[in-house]
C-alpha cells in the first residue's frame, strides 16, 4: 500500500523492496541498496543522503555513452571521504517499483559522476553506485520502511 497525506493526496507514487546489507568498506554496518534502471539495465545503488550526485561504479560507467555536449570532463571533485577525478554528466535513471499495488516507476534526470578509470581505483573498492542527495535525490519525496521482512523504499514526485 502506498503512502498518502491526510487529505488523500499521494505522498509516494511507487514503492520497491530493497536490500539491507553490508557492503565493502562499511564494516559491520549495513546499507540500503535499491535497484535502479539505467538504459534498461538494472543496477544496485546505495542510498546515501549525506553524499552528492549519482556516483557511478565502474561497472555502471562501463556501458554508458557520454555525450560531450552534456559532460563536464576532467574535474576534480571532493565528496565526503574522498577526492576523485572524473566527469559529471546528466543521466536519466528510473526508480523501479515492485509493480501491482506498489505503484509505478519514476524516471528522472540526475547528475552522475563517472570516476576516471585511469586513476588508481580498484573496481572492488567501489562496487556499488551511490544515490546521493545533491543533484540526485533532492527533488523527489522518499521514505523508508525498515521493518524486517517489510523493507520498502517509497518514492514520489515533488509537486
Amino acid at each position, binding site marked *: 500500500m502506498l503512502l498518502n497525506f491526510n487529505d488523500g493526496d499521494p505522498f509516494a507514487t511507487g514503492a520497491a523492496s530493497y*536490500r539491507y546489507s553490508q557492503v565493502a568498506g562499511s564494516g559491520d554496518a549495513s546499507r540500503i541498496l535499491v535497484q535502479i534502471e539505467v538504459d534498461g539495465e538494472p543496477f544496485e545503488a546505495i542510498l546515501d543522503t549525506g553524499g552528492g550526485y549519482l556516483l557511478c561504479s565502474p561497472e555502471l560507467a562501463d556501458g554508458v555513452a557520454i555525450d560531450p555536449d552534456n559532460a563536464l570532463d576532467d574535474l576534480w571533485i571532493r565528496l565526503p571521504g574522498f577526492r576523485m577525478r572524473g566527469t559529471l554528466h546528466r543521466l536519466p535513471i528510473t526508480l523501479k517499483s515492485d509493480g501491482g499495488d506498489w505503484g509505478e516507476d519514476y524516471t528522472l534526470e540526475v547528475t552522475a559522476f563517472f570516476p576516471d578509470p585511469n586513476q588508481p581505483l580498484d573496481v572492488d573498492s567501489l*562496487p556499488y553506485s551511490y544515490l546521493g542527495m545533491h543533484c540526485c535525490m533532492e527533488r523527489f519525496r522518499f521514505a523508508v520502511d525498515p521493518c524486517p521482512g517489510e523493507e520498502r523504499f517509497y518514492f514520489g514526485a515533488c509537486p
Partner: protein
Amino acid sequence: MPATLRTSPTKCVHPLGFRYNASKTLDTRSKLRYRDDLPRYEKHALSVSNVRWLQAIRRRPSDPLFRLERAARLNSTAFVNALNSIHWKNVSAADFIRAIRMALSVGAHVAARRLAMEGADAHSNNTQLQKYARVLAPPKPLPKRERSNLQPKANIEWLKANRERYKGQWVAIKNGVFISSAPTYKALVAELGHPRDRGILLTPIY
C-alpha cells in the same frame, strides 16, 4: 639600558635575517616609554616589515579570484566565505568556470551550482557556462515511460535467500534467476561476455 629590556631574558629571540619580520604587536613595545628603547636591529626590522607589507599590497594580483584560490587551499567554509566577498557582476565567463571547478574540488557543491546559474545568466551567449548550468542543475522528472520487463523484487528475493551461499562472490541474476558467479567483477564479465542489453544484474554479495 632601559629597565624593561633588562627584565626580558633576551633582547630579541630572532636572529636578524632576510626573512625576519618584527611583530607589530610586540608586547614589549607597549611597555616601552620611548621609541628609542627598542633595540637597534628591532627598529630596523620593523621598518623592513612595513616596507614588505606595502610591497605586498602593491604587487597584489589584479585577479578577482586571487582570494578564492587561496581559500580553496583551506576548506569549503573558507571558500564559501571568500566567494561571498566577491562581486560577480563584472567577472568574465572564464573566471566563472574557474570558480565553479574550484568549488567542486573543495566540495562546495551548492556554491558550484549557484555560480553556474549566475554565470549562465550573466553570460547567456557562452556555451560552456550554459553547459555547466545544465549539468549542475537540480534533478528533473521525466515523462513516464513504458514499464520494462525488469523485476527488481525477484532479484532482491533471490539475493536475500542466497546471501550465505555466494558470500564474497559477484553474481549475475536476471529477474530472480541465477546465471553465474565469479570471485571478481572482471572474471564474471569475462565469463558472460558483455552483459549489457540483456537485463542482467551484476552485484557483489558481502
